[in-house]
């Protein structure tokens, strides 16, 4: 409990300076590190022939993003298929099967990192570096680039130009992701995460038997895995494995790595809006900009509510084991590591699903029903900070919806950030909000009505439905964690989750950029006494309520058949 509070308080002190740095990078302001980075970036621009001044409208931006991601998917697919005959393969691993390769590249390109393979036995070191690590950088940078374009659209300095996708992609990689990954990577090696190209070690134990110890370039993958909110582990058991997460300190480094940038995106957004507002009126000074503060508050509230539920549910332990005579004084320890205990596990679980990373430091399938409901719900919401940039965009969609509902209640024209919200934006917003539950519930329904879907379920009863729901929520939200018991390496699961990840990522992204593209063309309307204020505590409260009400209406029926029913069957 105390551990969780200290960790979160320290987070608040770290997130603001990082947010301000992001704001500087995004708005092309000067920073002290420019002399180094400009040289690197200019070199890349020269090789690739990209002119960073070349501005794109929203459609061009989308095309550039989708085409570039498409190329990367193709390259990644080929490497996976042929990894057996490529270099850096000391453990002699063969090529990957086609439906699994399809699932894996989609998974990593969409920032999901759902894994239907096990890293120790399924990937060569070359694939771990040139497919997995590479895509961890570029998928995070793509998501973040889309977010900056979206915010530029909302800020509306220009009527058409959203920035240059290629230059955004490169700047974010070189100025934010790479330097952070190098620092965090070395911190992790210091704590005990291996970083080597030598093959696995076979030890002879003091009892005379043998033990295989899996090795590899783990730390370099581990740092970007969290910084880019990717989440795919080097090893099958992800960050529960001591070599991925050896100590409580590595655990804290990994926590902060995934929490800082998504939080910083909100700060950056607030700063950009505040700067624009300053030109037209007097604004109150605030460290993260008043509009950013509202969103940050709303997100934090949902986060803390979820975290508390998860923590207390796990502390309560498992009543069936208590009945069998096993003390539950340490909480529910099945699937958890002794070095983390319930505190660090509950925190990590809530963070990984709120910030849509998908890394796990305990096995989510073994969580208590209500403890498991929290990660499931946060992926269904997909806006509690969310992954790189994407969470902020999802939250703003809900902000637009809240503005619309509130304004209708008080009889005003809906406006957000000085722009009128009209029919076109509302239609797109409604579409965007519907896609996520449609993917989750539609595919889950398909899975529980077909035998190829049902045969993946490994825990009987209500929990079986939770396993299916979790897999598709994780796919559609581009999270990537799993109720790992699910037997998911089959053609059915590889293809359906591949599609859910693909549509979950790109369809929402295109719609969101379309909304921003449409808003940026509009005239700014002056704020009057009649304007609904969106930077107040009341609005933050309304926003949280609307998020819960929508989630409740959409997901409550299925949640009550899964985790809620399991809870009552255990405790009833």
């Amino acid at each position: 409990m105390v551990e969780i509070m200290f960790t979160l308080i320290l987070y608040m002190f770290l997130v603001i300076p990082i947010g301000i740095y992001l704001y500087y990078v995004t708005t092309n302001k000067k920073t002290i590190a420019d002399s180094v980075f400009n040289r690197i970036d200019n070199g890349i621009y020269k090789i690739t022939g990209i002119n960073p001044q070349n501005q794109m409208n929203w459609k061009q931006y989308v095309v550039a993003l989708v085409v570039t991601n498409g190329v990367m998917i193709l390259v990644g697919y080929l490497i996976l298929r042929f990894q057996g005959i490529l270099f850096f393969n000391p453990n002699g691993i063969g090529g990957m099967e086609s439906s699994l390769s399809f699932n894996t590249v989609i998974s990593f390109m969409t920032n999901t990192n759902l894994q239907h393979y096990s890293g120790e036995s399924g990937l060569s070191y070359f694939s771990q570096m040139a497919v997995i690590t590479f895509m961890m950088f570029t998928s995070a940078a793509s998501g973040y680039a889309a977010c900056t374009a979206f915010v530029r659209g909302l800020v509306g300095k220009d009527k058409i130009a959203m920035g240059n996708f290629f230059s955004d992609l490169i700047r974010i990689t070189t100025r934010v992701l790479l330097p952070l990954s190098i620092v965090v990577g070395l911190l992790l090696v210091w704590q005990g995460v291996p970083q080597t190209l030598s093959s696995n070690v076979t030890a002879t134990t003091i009892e005379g038997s043998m033990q295989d110890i899996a090795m590899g370039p783990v730390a370099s993958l581990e740092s970007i895995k969290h910084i880019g909110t990717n989440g795919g582990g080097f090893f099958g058991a992800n960050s529960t494995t001591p070599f991925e997460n050896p100590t409580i300190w590595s655990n804290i480094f990994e926590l902060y790595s995934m929490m800082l940038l998504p939080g910083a995106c909100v700060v950056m957004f607030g700063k950009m809006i505040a700067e624009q507002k300053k030109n037209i009126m007097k604004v109150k000074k605030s460290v993260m900009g008043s509009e950013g503060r509202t969103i940050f508050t709303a997100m934090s509230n949902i986060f803390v509510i979820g975290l508390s539920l998860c923590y207390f549910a796990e502390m309560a332990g498992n009543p069936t084991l208590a009945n069998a005579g096993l003390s539950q004084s340490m909480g529910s320890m099945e699937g958890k590591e002794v070095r983390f205990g319930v505190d660090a596990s509950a925190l990590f679980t809530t963070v990984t699903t709120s910030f849509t990373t998908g890394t796990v430091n305990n096995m989510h399938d073994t969580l208590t029903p209500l403890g498991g409901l929290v990660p499931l719900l946060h992926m269904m919401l997909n806006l509690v900070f969310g992954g790189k940039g994407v969470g902020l965009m999802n939250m703003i969609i809900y902000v637009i919806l809240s503005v619309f509902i509130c304004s209708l209640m008080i009889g005003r024209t809906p406006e957000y950030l000085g722009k009128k919200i009209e029919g076109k934006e509302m239609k797109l917003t409604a579409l965007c909000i519907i896609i996520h539950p449609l993917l989750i519930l539609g595919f889950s329904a398909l899975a529980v009505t077909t035998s190829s879907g049902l045969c993946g379920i490994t825990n009987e009863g209500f929990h079986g439905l939770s396993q299916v729901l979790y897999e598709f929520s994780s796919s559609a939200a581009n999270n990537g964690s799993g109720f790992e018991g699910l037997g998911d390496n089959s053609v059915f699961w590889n293809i359906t989750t591949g599609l859910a990840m693909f549509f979950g990522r790109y369809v929402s992204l295109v719609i969101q950029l379309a909304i921003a593209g449409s808003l940026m063309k509009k005239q700014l309307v002056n704020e009057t006494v009649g304007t609904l204020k969106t930077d107040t505590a009341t609005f933050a409260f309304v926003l949280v309520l609307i998020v819960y009400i929508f989630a409740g209406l959409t997901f409550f029926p299925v949640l009550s058949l899964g985790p809620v029913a399991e809870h009552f069957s255990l405790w009833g």
Partner: protein
Amino acid sequence: MNGFVYYIRKGVLVSLVLLFICGLGYPLLMTGVAQVVFPHQANGSLISADGKVIGSELIGQDFTKDYFLKCRPSTVSYNTYTKEDLERGSYSTVGSGSQNFAPSNPQLVERVKKDMESFLEKNPSIKMEDIPTDLLTASGSGLDPHISPQAAEIQLESIAKASGISIEKLEKIVIVNTTKKTVGIFGENTVNVLKVNLAIAKEMGLVQNIKH
């Protein structure tokens, strides 16, 4: 402004450059730096005794002898295996993970009950309610190197009997290999099982030179 072909061409170029920087340059640079600055950790924090690698201080092992401390249950048996296991095919490849039993899964209760019976049989002086939660539950990774101090404490009496080392001495060994919560807040109190067993083995004369 620009045709579709323009985006494909630039997309390919940017992808290749980033693949080179992030997919090769960065991990190789990290490998180089890590091998120079933290060679012990970068190579898996291996421990050797009498010139042979006997394990890693970060990975648990499956101990069977009565005079050794036991780890938590593991689905993958800590990737520990004997020659017979290899011949029988009961060990195939290195892995990690848990059985992923839901809290409502009856197999979980069965496994815990079975392990509890055999533990109480081997440690007759221990009462059922004194067994701490972690000792009979499986970790997430199946490689957890630690158990809680209570889980170590309740095993000592039978270890003392089997090894001939006094309980006081064993308690000291456990304390030396216990890591406390950092500044009393972060993490948990943990006992490293492999390190305790190495100390026991040294005390019994089974190994001489231990190198961390």
